């Protein structure tokens, strides 16, 4: 049914991105504004693919320092120990709390990596115009958007560990540069997923102004 689906775009209609009202484009070249809420109308999120790629690639670049650089540095009795994300997982595992180790591993490492790979696959599928499996890709896009915030977990772990463990001169924890890159990965992947207009996953013909 996807080949002949009657979409708003094929009828010269636009669904307002803010309030959902179905409106007709003011002119073929200029979509205009929503008559109800006044938001600017777009047939599709403008520059959706380019923005999504740019943000996704930036996130992938930040993912490397986020995992290599320490997120926390523990100073205890004169000696300082750097702690990376995966090091923190190993610490939790060896201290006996493997459920938490698993949560941190999934939230901090597997979710960001899975998000980057999923975004890449969705963008390639749109570019190639791959048919079939739109529903699965739609579900993937929904999952990517839903789990996105959970990878902020390690940023909060670092923040509250640093805030609490300030027992100078006995022991103190300082944030490392890794936490900044890690926060960047999370924010950039969240923005990349938001930029990707899901309707592009379904579009079968160019969304151009129609004159007929």
């Amino acid at each position, binding site marked *: 049914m996807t080949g002949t689906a009657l979409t708003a775009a094929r009828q010269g*209609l636009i669904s307002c991105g803010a309030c959902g009202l*179905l409106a*007709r484009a003011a002119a073929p070249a200029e979509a205009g504004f929503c008559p109800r809420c006044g938001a600017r109308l777009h047939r599709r999120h403008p520059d959706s693919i380019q923005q999504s790629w740019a943000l996704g690639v930036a996130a992938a670049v930040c993912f490397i320092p986020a995992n290599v650089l320490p997120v926390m540095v523990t100073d205890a009795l004169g000696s300082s120990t750097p702690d990376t994300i995966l090091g923190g997982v190993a610490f939790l595992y060896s201290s006996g709390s493997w459920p938490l180790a698993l949560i941190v591993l999934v939230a901090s490492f597997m979710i960001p990596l899975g998000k980057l790979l999923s975004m890449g696959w969705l963008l390639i599928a749109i570019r190639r115009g791959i048919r079939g499996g739109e529903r699965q890709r739609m579900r993937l896009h929904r999952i990517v958007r839903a789990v996105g915030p959970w990878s902020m977990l390690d940023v*909060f772990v670092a923040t509250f560990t640093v*805030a609490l463990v300030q027992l100078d001169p006995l022991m103190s924890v300082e944030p490392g540069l890794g936490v900044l890159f890690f926060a960047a990965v999370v924010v950039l992947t969240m923005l990349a997923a938001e930029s990707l207009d899901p309707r592009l996953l379904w579009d079968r013909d160019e969304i151009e102004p129609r004159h007929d």
Partner: protein
Amino acid sequence: MARMHQTADIIACPGCDLLQRLPPVPLGARARCPRCGEILAAPPMDPIERPLALAVAAAITFGVAQATPLMSLSAVGRSAQTTIIGGALEMWSQGQPITAALVLICTTLAPGAYLTLVCTLLLAVRRPPAPSWAGALLRLAGHARAWSLPEVMLLGILVALVKIADLASVDPGVGLFATGALLALLAGLATSFDPRTIWDRVAWPTQDTPRGPGASLAEHAGGTAAR
């Protein structure tokens, strides 16, 4: 017979752009797009009073969670405690201003803005017609909700507690329990607050033509769609 919720008939699915006629949806039920599965309508049983009660309760709980210490730590006669904002401030003073700002946005500013906006909105749309500025608040509330992450913060605090528990004794504070209660209230608010219902109550800016060009043309398109 269940009460029905009536909206503008013809809509385009926000997920896949499929044009469809939305049937009357029973209150408390959900309508999904047949093609992509996106939720098109989920009118709650009690769209104003219940979310308003939850939002006010959540705002009070949020205030308590922000003002009281999350947890305190003691080791060899020394002790330290922190609040949510204290965590962000400590990050700032340790040379991480960007991370500190992000933490402050996700734990304090965005949830605070969201609850303020939702309370204002629900009070404003209680008596129809709803003011046209309600739409702007609704849009802002959506952005604020997307960036408020109290549930992730709570899990982060719990992980931090377990990590620290080996080194020193940690006592959970009032703020931690208040945050837990806040999550329950926010979950209730999420299921009872329906932006689509609010949009249907928002007055159109042009009062002399209550049905604007978009709606009349949508009806025209509906005729085409039904062909």
